[in-house]
């Protein structure tokens, strides 16, 4: 026993080092899991409130840009208004409203913290459970898609950006309807990769890529980006496609959270079949 105590007092420095290092590595590994340690999450109270105060200051620097963007979005929306179309026929069509059930609910929120330079990028929003954000909701902005909500606290939520090495978003090329998966290889915040595009398709630079109907999180047909480069892999029947995001991830400010009201029904049905 005496020797044991002696051993500990003599080597306390190395032992303390090993304990602290193990604890840190454990936290790193824990962070990779889907259920991340809650107390270390950016959506926790201290850092969330501080980031909000900070973004309250820096918010003013980008005001001009944001006004421009909002004005452009207003114009777009106004163009879709009913009274900006003149009736071309005299016959009218009646739509029974009971045929349509609302599937998606949009909420507005502000980004209070954002990163784009890591391999696993997260955003923090100033809306949480109290504002109606639920886990696994889609996050979009006026330019395109942003990410998926991964963690919700009372007034903040943490969003896994599309710029994340584990991000996999079902997308499609609008012109052909070819379904594919969007991944991000971590090289830069402007480009992403598409998997398994058959090489017989005559794709061209600039073709539009939108979200596909296979996603239970994102609504169908949201703008993702345009094809930037493609290359045929030797000995393979697929293209290596790089797309350019329509979203500027460095300038995110006001975004929309999209709750899919029918997601639970869809996923529970799908899970039942897999059993």
């Amino acid at each position: 026993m005496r020797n044991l105590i002696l051993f500990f007092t003599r080597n306390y420095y190395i032992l303390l080092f090993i304990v602290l290092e193990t604890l840190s590595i454990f936290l790193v590994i824990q962070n990779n899991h889907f259920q991340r340690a809650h107390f270390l999450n950016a959506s926790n109270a201290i850092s969330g409130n501080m980031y909000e105060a900070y973004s309250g200051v820096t918010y003013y620097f980008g005001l001009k840009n944001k006004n421009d963007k909002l004005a452009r979005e207003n114009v777009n929306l106004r163009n879709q208004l009913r009274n900006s179309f003149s009736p071309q026929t005299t016959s009218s069509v009646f739509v029974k409203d009971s045929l349509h059930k609302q599937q998606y609910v949009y909420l507005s929120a502000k980004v209070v913290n954002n990163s784009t330079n890591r391999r696993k990028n997260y955003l923090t929003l100033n809306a949480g459970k109290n504002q109606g954000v639920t886990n696994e909701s889609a996050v979009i902005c006026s330019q395109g898609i942003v990410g998926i909500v991964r963690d919700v606290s009372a007034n903040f939520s943490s969003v896994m950006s599309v710029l994340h090495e584990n991000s996999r978003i079902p997308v499609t090329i609008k012109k052909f309807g070819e379904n594919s998966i969007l991944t991000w290889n971590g090289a830069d915040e402007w480009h992403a990769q598409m998997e398994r595009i058959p090489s017989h398709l005559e794709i061209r630079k600039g073709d539009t890529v939108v979200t596909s109907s296979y996603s239970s999180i994102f609504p169908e047909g949201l703008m993702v980006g345009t094809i930037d480069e493609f290359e045929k892999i030797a000995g393979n029947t697929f293209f290596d496609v790089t797309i350019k995001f329509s979203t500027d991830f460095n300038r995110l400010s006001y975004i929309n959270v999209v709750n899919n009201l029918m997601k639970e029904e869809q996923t529970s049905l799908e899970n039942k079949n897999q059993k």
Partner: protein
Amino acid sequence: MINDVVKNILRFLFLLLFQVLILNNIQLSGYLNPFLYVLFILMLPFQTPNWLVLLLSFFLGLSVDMFADTGGLHAAASVLMAFLRQPILKLIAPREGYDINQQPTIQQFGFGWFFTYAGILVFVHHIFLFYVEAFHFSEFFSTLFRIILSSFFTLTLIFISQFFFSKHKIQ
């Protein structure tokens, strides 16, 4: 002594806020990430007990992690750096040893000494940090490039801060 404690607490808070609010927002083509907060570990007085150095580094790293949402990545790198601080100080000690009143600064030991001291520790910290973050060897060289650029940037900031707060003339 009390004065030293207060000074180090203030330095801890200042470097932490500077890191998470300003430096973490610097994004130059994804390559340059300066981590100036390690200056706190470098500047701890010589008579700080070893276990305290480890614990302080752990909490400093953990605080940065909390804001950057990186689990325990910075904590792990900082603890490793703190662990190596003692052996490296011993390795590059001047012939007469360290005086109890001295601080590990460029003003008291000169440019060469400080460059070896800060250079080795910062480089170790960055190597560990970036390779654990990337976690596969397929991007070995691009990660190495990031490590070298970022270490250079961090060291430049450390030297600037040394001259900025200098009270005495450089030897």
